[in-house]
């Protein structure tokens, strides 16, 4: 297969129109990935889109390359096995915050710990989109959802710090409003050998927005514009204040040996 230079080559145009609501951020994140793949000229058959279950999980239908649609929360664990069988394959997991933060949280931590060579793009819409807008682990305290009608009674989880501590080689966070930064981070993530993670704040006007007085996509984009702080500023906030803001920036960029490299080295050193 020839090397693709145009991001449109990675999109399965015959599968469109997509099922996402108007104003949903999934498409912007997907385009960011396609742009990064084109920039690096990765042949289509050398990349895999691995999705979880959720609105974001439909992304695999819209790509022209390999796709894997797993069971809810387990996609990263499946990717671990795929990586062992196909070490040269670029594996990109495109997961919801519920999928990779709640039901799949343990797999996320352990794949980061083992530093398996894969990229996780967490599409953080602060809610369970597919099932009708229930709160998720990243939903900020006090915000409303279809299962927190009186305000959410626990704190939103900081996924990036968690993954960084667990051992990932690359961790960054931004929003779909900040597209230049988004495209850059995705590009850096997929160029990283080892575990890379990008948290992408993304609008769900249909549920998160509707429940929290951000009824339209533009309103949600305004919200991201105001509430996303560069990492240095965000780090100065108290835990309570952080619930109202989103972090923008790179937490980790390092070059620890990934799982397979370490496995092979360990054996050769015997």
């Amino acid at each position, binding site marked *: *297969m020839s090397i693709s230079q145009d991001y449109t080559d990675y999109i399965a145009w015959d599968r469109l129109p997509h099922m996402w609501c108007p104003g949903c951020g999934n498409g912007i994140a997907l385009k960011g990935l396609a742009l990064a793949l084109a920039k690096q000229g990765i042949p289509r*058959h050398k990349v*895999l889109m691995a999705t979880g279950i959720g609105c974001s999980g439909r992304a695999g239908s819209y790509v022209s390359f*390999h*796709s894997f649609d797993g069971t809810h929360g387990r996609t990263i*664990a499946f990717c671990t096995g*795929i990586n*062992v*069988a*196909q070490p040269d394959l670029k594996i990109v997991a495109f997961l919801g915050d519920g999928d990779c933060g709640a039901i799949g949280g343990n797999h996320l931590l352990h794949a980061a710990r083992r530093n398996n060579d894969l990229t996780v793009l967490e599409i953080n819409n602060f809610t369970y989109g597919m099932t009708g807008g229930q709160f998720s682990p990243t939903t900020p305290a006090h915000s409303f959802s279809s299962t927190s009608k009186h305000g959410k009674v626990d704190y939103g989880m900081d996924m990036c710090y968690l993954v960084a501590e667990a051992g990932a080689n690359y961790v960054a966070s931004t929003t779909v409003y900040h597209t230049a930064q988004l495209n850059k981070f995705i590009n850096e993530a997929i160029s990283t050998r080892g575990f890379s993670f990008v948290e992408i704040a993304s609008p769900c006007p249909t549920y998160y927005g509707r429940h929290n007085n951000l009824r339209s996509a533009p309103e949600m984009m305004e919200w991201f514009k105001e509430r996303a702080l560069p990492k240095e500023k965000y780090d100065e906030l108290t835990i309570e204040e952080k619930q109202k803001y989103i972090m923008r920036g790179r937490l980790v960029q390092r070059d620890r040996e990934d799982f397979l490299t370490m496995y092979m080295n360990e054996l050769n050193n015997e």
Partner: protein
Amino acid sequence: MSKFFVEGNVASALGAIKAGARFFAGYPISPASELAEYCSQEMPKVGGIYMQMEDEIASMAAVIGASLGGMKAFTATSGPGMSLMQENIGYASMVEAPCVIINVQRFGLSTGVATSPGQSDIMQARWGRHGDQSIIALTPSSVQGCFDLTVEAFNLAERFSSPVMVLFEASIAHLRERINILESEELHLIERKKPDVSPEDYKPYKPDERGVPRLSYYGSEHILKTTGLVHTETGNISSDARVCAALVERLERKIEDYQDELPPPKYYGTKDAETVLVSFGISSRAAREAVYRANLAGISAGLIELQTVWPFPEKAIAQYLSKALRVIVVEMNRGQVTREIERVVSRNLVDPLLRTDTNIFYPHDILDKIKEVHDI
């Protein structure tokens, strides 16, 4: 060929490696841990990988992932881990990923007795997942059987593009016997069929004449799309009524219609016996001896030893039982195979010998039962 003096767990791991498995993912659990330990030691020597995952859900997922990457892969666990694996085994059935799951059965429900044997996961193997599907499950009754039927399990997984289970008990897992190990070159090994069209024309889920797709692998120029949602031949999702009906039917029939390719039951003792025992695994060893002693005492008795428990070999069993006046099902559970036998022959003929006290059967237990039904 070489002779080994090993336990069932090791024999099964050896079977997997000789069958070409190059990936093991698992999570420690009694009485299956020795299998993982052996793989961690031996896999690297054959260029394979051992991975200890964070739990059994992840283990099953990683095995399926490796299989979709083109490798032969397997896992081993016991009751609690088996329960955790169910959702992803259903996924493997749906995406038709060849893989092998070894269930070293321990005693009881929940945590049970971790180090004692059991035979009570038979129905779980068949019906543990949501939704209709067929599954293949094999039940060796010796250490040699652990080797042979694990090799067979890999062949069947590749042949049917399906998960295949091997169930043996803690007692065989830890029993040491002298066995013959064949090298890969000496074994008849089956590999999955490769795509036979160009990448442009390729549809990953287009079945061949036997209902089995020719799966490519991630990284191949033949683009692979897998999903646990109902999908068309292209691998793209669909909720069309006809697509749903055809897929569910094919997934069942691709196995059920070819049952005669699965390891058949073995028969011991008097031909067309009056009293026929049905058993499997560790229990059938004692049953074999009991039938032998009964025959010496002039009693007309035989034994059907299951090698394949799912799909249940109804036809073969019905034939063996056509002349039987009494059927004794010998199993260490509350009657899981007994219910299947009652579907095949009249309930009135069936008199089970069940045991759920952590102990295995002894030949004299079974001989007593044979004598009892013969009124001797």
